[in-house]
């Protein structure tokens, strides 16, 4: 009787896990296009966007059950994670790529986006990632300053200052100041 009960519990747990994985796969399938688009806006190029989405979704998927238990909107959770991950990745790359001199020639062709000819897009790509994230969350996600602050884990004052600096940079680059 005990053995039967244990088997039943195991099957129940296994079934729960299979269901959770199924939910996650469905979530990925449905949200992937929007997340890639959002990642494109955040990173400035489609390849980095794909890497960012893949990385964050894998992390979230490995803890899918606990993400669901928290009761947050999974999509909002993933987007916040993407913004923060992008900023962290940029910090790491910035440390790794600092060199004293420019290379003689570009070894790798720059990754082109279909928006590369847009001056605003170019100006946006040149922003530091946190400023860029603030702009994306503000104009892409239509989040308020408080929501942006919560998403990025920073204060409202920092959001305001980052936004102000970003807009000033964009105006300067576009010759609109």
């Amino acid at each position, binding site marked *: 009787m005990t053995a039967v009960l244990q088997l039943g519990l195991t099957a129940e747990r296994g079934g729960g896990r299979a269901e959770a*994985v199924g939910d*996650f*796969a469905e979530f*990925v*399938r449905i949200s*992937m*296009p929007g997340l*890639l*688009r959002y*990642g*494109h*806006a955040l990173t400035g190029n*489609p390849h980095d*966007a*794909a890497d960012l*989405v*893949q990385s964050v*979704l*894998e*992390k*979230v*998927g*490995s*803890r*899918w059950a606990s993400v669901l238990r928290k009761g947050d909107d999974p999509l909002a959770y993933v987007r916040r994670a993407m913004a923060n991950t992008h900023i962290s990745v940029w910090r790491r790359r910035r440390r790794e790529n600092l060199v004293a001199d420019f290379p003689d020639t570009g070894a790798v062709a720059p990754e082109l*986006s*279909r*928006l590369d000819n*847009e001056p*605003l*897009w170019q100006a*946006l790509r040149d922003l530091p990632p946190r400023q860029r994230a603030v*702009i*994306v969350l503000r*104009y*892409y996600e239509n989040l308020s300053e408080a929501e942006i602050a919560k998403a990025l884990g920073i204060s409202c004052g920092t959001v305001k200052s980052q936004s102000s600096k970003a*807009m000033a940079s*964009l*105006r300067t680059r*576009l010759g*609109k100041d």
Partner: protein
Amino acid sequence: MDDIDDELRKLFNDDRLDVHVTPDATSSVVRGAQRRRRRRAAATGTFAVVAVIGAGIGLTQLRPLALDSADDLLPTSSSTASTTPPPPSVSTYTQTVTVTVDPPVGGVPNTAQNGTTAPNTTKSSSTSTTKESAPGVFGRLALGMSEEDALKTGSLGTAGTPTEAGCKPYSSVSNADPSTVLISSAKGIVRIKLPDTARTSKNIGTGSKVTDLKNAYPSAAVNGSELVVQMTATPAWVYVFENDGTAVTSVRMRLADNDCPGA
């Protein structure tokens, strides 16, 4: 400013921001998530195994540590204790004494000098059926040790006049009492007096209350003004607690089978 606002909104609504989704994108993400979960589970399992092994090793080391502490008993004047750095695992030892209901350690831990040995007389009250067991060792001296070996330890002080039975008294390097150690030519060391500052592993020493002594050593037998505790060891020996009916006035370790009257 409004121009840039509008341009940004227009830019972020641009269809060119769309990124093509590869057909295997979903399965790739799901596989990656499963891989991460497995890796994390493996890491957690490894950590758990390491923790269990570590805990096991720690537990196995605690008991020898307690015995070592007893074996390292020093002739216990305060000056000697102060020159001896406390072992780094003092807290561990203290915990052992506290947790172990019936620590089978005789002698006097040097940690007692630092006041770190947890008083455990109340806990010992639950050990009424415990048979006391500990080696008859005090510092580098051991009951039954030959005079020659005892002298080699450097723990003996000056020799006194041998008794009629041929037993030779010695002071120790930390105790000026001329009869701290009594050595029989046939049995070796037959008695070691403990200094007033010393405490047994059950925190009994000169000045301890007799009630505490009886709680710590329920097997203590009355012998005149003494309470005697038989210790199971090879060679067999006893703790002799002299007392005035209220408190312990002196403690000595005595070889059970000895040929020195009055030892």
